[in-house]
């Protein structure tokens, strides 16, 4: 599970407030969708969860481990997919996967099974010995996703994971999300695709100007007292972020 308690983060010595007093709980077995307009604080929040940014205030725990004081233990149970697949271009896909397997300590038998499975699903099996440099954007995204799945982590944190994927891969990823959480694991992802969030997520959080303006299941979001009557997530999102 992921827990954020009164988390704040600013840039330029606090002059720009990216995230303000964010409190959020993502439960085990839950797919949590994190929505917000550009610059709302989604990526900053995600980077704080995975330890790429330090919060100015508040506390973040992953599976009970404080990401600031028990960072290695938190990292051991978490994998992350960034919004842009910046990976080691001079390594082959397989070398990169081996690297990730080594640093997360994945045993060989499990490594073989998982690599084989995801390379087939993502149609990367025939290029896995080529340098990543030669991959298309979508292929790079798939190799990063495969690497994130390789340790079978308790928690996955993904920043717009569906960008750049073809429809087949996007479909398979969504199935993987469900499968992952059905095993009692946690998935936190940001997206701009309302339809995906609406259909896939157990709960949704909407962040606007650094503040969490709504959080709950689709049914709970629909019950929010609003001036307009629309019931789709898109309509709810547009109204809540139109300030």
């Amino acid at each position, binding site marked *: 599970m992921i827990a954020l308690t009164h988390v704040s983060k600013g840039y*330029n*010595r606090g002059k720009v407030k990216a995230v303000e007093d964010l409190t959020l709980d993502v439960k085990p077995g839950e797919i949590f969708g994190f929505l917000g307009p550009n610059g709302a604080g989604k990526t900053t929040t995600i*980077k704080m969860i*995975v*330890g*790429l*940014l*330090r919060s100015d205030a508040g506390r973040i725990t992953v599976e009970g481990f404080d990401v*600031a004081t028990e*960072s*290695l*233990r938190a*990292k*051991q149970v*978490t*994998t*992350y997919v*960034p919004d*842009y697949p*910046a*990976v*080691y271009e*001079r*390594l*082959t896909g*397989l*070398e990169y*996967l*081996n*690297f*990730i*397997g*080594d*640093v*997360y*300590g*994945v*045993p*060989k038998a499990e*490594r*073989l099974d998982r*690599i*084989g499975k995801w390379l087939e699903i993502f149609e990367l*099996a*025939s*290029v*896995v*010995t*080529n*340098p990543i*440099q*030669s991959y298309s954007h979508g292929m790079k995204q798939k190799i990063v996703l495969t690497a994130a799945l390789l340790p079978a982590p308790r928690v996955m944190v993904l920043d717009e994971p569906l960008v750049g994927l073809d429809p087949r891969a996007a479909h398979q990823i969504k199935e993987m999300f469900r499968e992952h959480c059905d095993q009692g694991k946690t998935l936190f992802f940001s997206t701009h695709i309302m339809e995906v969030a609406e259909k896939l997520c157990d709960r949704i959080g909407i962040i606007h100007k650094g503040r969490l303006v709504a959080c709950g299941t689709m049914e709970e979001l629909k019950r929010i007292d609003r001036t307009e009557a629309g019931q789709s997530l898109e309509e709810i999102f547009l109204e809540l972020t139109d300030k």
Partner: protein
Amino acid sequence: MSGRSGSRLRTLAAVVKAGLRSNFGLATLKHRLFKEKKDRWLVPLIGLAAVGVVPMFYGIVLLIENVYLVLRPMGQERALLSFGLLAGQLLVLLFGVYYVIAAFYFSRDLEFLIPLPLRPAEVMTSKFVVIVINEYLTVAAVVLPVVITLGVMARGGAGYWVNAVLVYLALPVIPLALVALAVVAMMRFINISRKKDALILVGSLLLIGLSIAVQIGLRRSAGVDGGPGASAAAVAAFFTSPDSLLNKVGAIFPPGIWATKAIAGGFSGEGLANLALLLGVTIALFAAMVVLAEKLFYRGLVGLAETTGRKRRLTRAEMSRRVSSGRRAGAAIFWREWKIMNRTPIFLLNGVLVSVFLPAVFILMATIDTGGKASGRGGDPMALLKALASANPLVAILAAALFMTICGSINGTASSTFSREGAQFWISRVIPVAPREQAAAKFLHSYLVAMLGVVTAGIVAAFFLHLEAAALIPAAGLSLVAGVLLAAVGMMIDLARPLLDWTNPQKAIKQNLNVLLALVADVGILTIAFFVVKALVKSKLAMGPVLGILFAGLAALSAASYAALLKFADKRYPEIES
């Protein structure tokens, strides 16, 4: 000027301006210094480094003055000017190969520039201008002391100074355009091959070899270098002969002599004619480069981003063989460093191969100075070194240790180790491996590259300088422990301010300020070691204790610096926001 060509010029100016801003990171620097208020500590440090080099420049100016006073009565003072200008041009020729290949073919901004409505020649010109401006800074250190000192001493008139400015502006263009022509042609050929990276490497080595050969050819042609190899009589005979040094040099690389005559001649007929010749050839070569760029630049370029691998599905057995059975995390990080460094031509050239080049270039230069006659004459530098080694074994050991240490540590592998990760640094931040363990793996990699330099330098010392094992072993021991200290210091400097937002790998290693700062730190450490040894010798200690104390001191400092590096990694990693 027609409206259309005026608009093209404006476009070119805009691309050049963007290139300069991006290359020198002015906007980022301004933001970091004044908005984020980071890196402010660098300002006094750079100021201090600038003050530190003042005595060195003063020494150079004094040397130039003295040489001038010797050459003046013989009417050969222009030779000094010629050497300064030529040294500047050769420097550009040698390093230009790195710069041109990196900027023309490995900048990531090309991905954004190529789709823009720009001609290939405009894109290449913008890159070329950035390199030329970079080279003005490099050349300044070599050329300006000579030109200014001579101008002041010879009371050069307005013609001298005006022409000097024009020559200075034109100076890097000819060698860089020559390099660019060769590189663009080479890349067009390489692009048809599947093994592009290997060919880029071989091509770069050939071009570097060629520029070294030109330099050696020049020195041989000059026949005299004023160094210890030249007897006073030979120098006098050479300078008073009608076949002067100036003309000999000019016969090999004419732009050097044109530049000299243009400055020294001022507004006289000779001065203006040579200035016109220099500027004319500069413009002609630049134009040739533009024409070639228009035809070949994109053809050499586009293929670089293409897929190099074939599609082939691994069998289950093959996959099983190639899937690692589980390395330790530290080993995995070491191999990642190793593979990325060796597979990125710019990193390999500037990091690993420099360690091998440096001793090789040293020995080439030393041999060439004697015209290939390696022994016999009293003025022979080899013979001098050998005589020195037998006369004072301590000096021989320390000189060899210094040589090995410099060859091992000057390559910038350690001081760019974090910067080289660039946009991929997020991976190091999210993996469950302690920063100290990551730093230790990176240290091992940097240290092994340094050892490559030490070993090559050791081989040079043993086979070319005929240094005996009794001297070689303690020298190697000293450079091995000093290597730990210098690698750890270099890594700490890079960790303090890693340059992660580069788009051109050249910026991560060759144009990385951290590499320069580490070099300054290395010089400082070696200077302190020199004074310590001097004090020990003065206190009448025998050779054994002097070496023992030096070794123990360096070993203690090395252990302390390594421990400090690991501690600093634990502190610094979480602070680096990527």
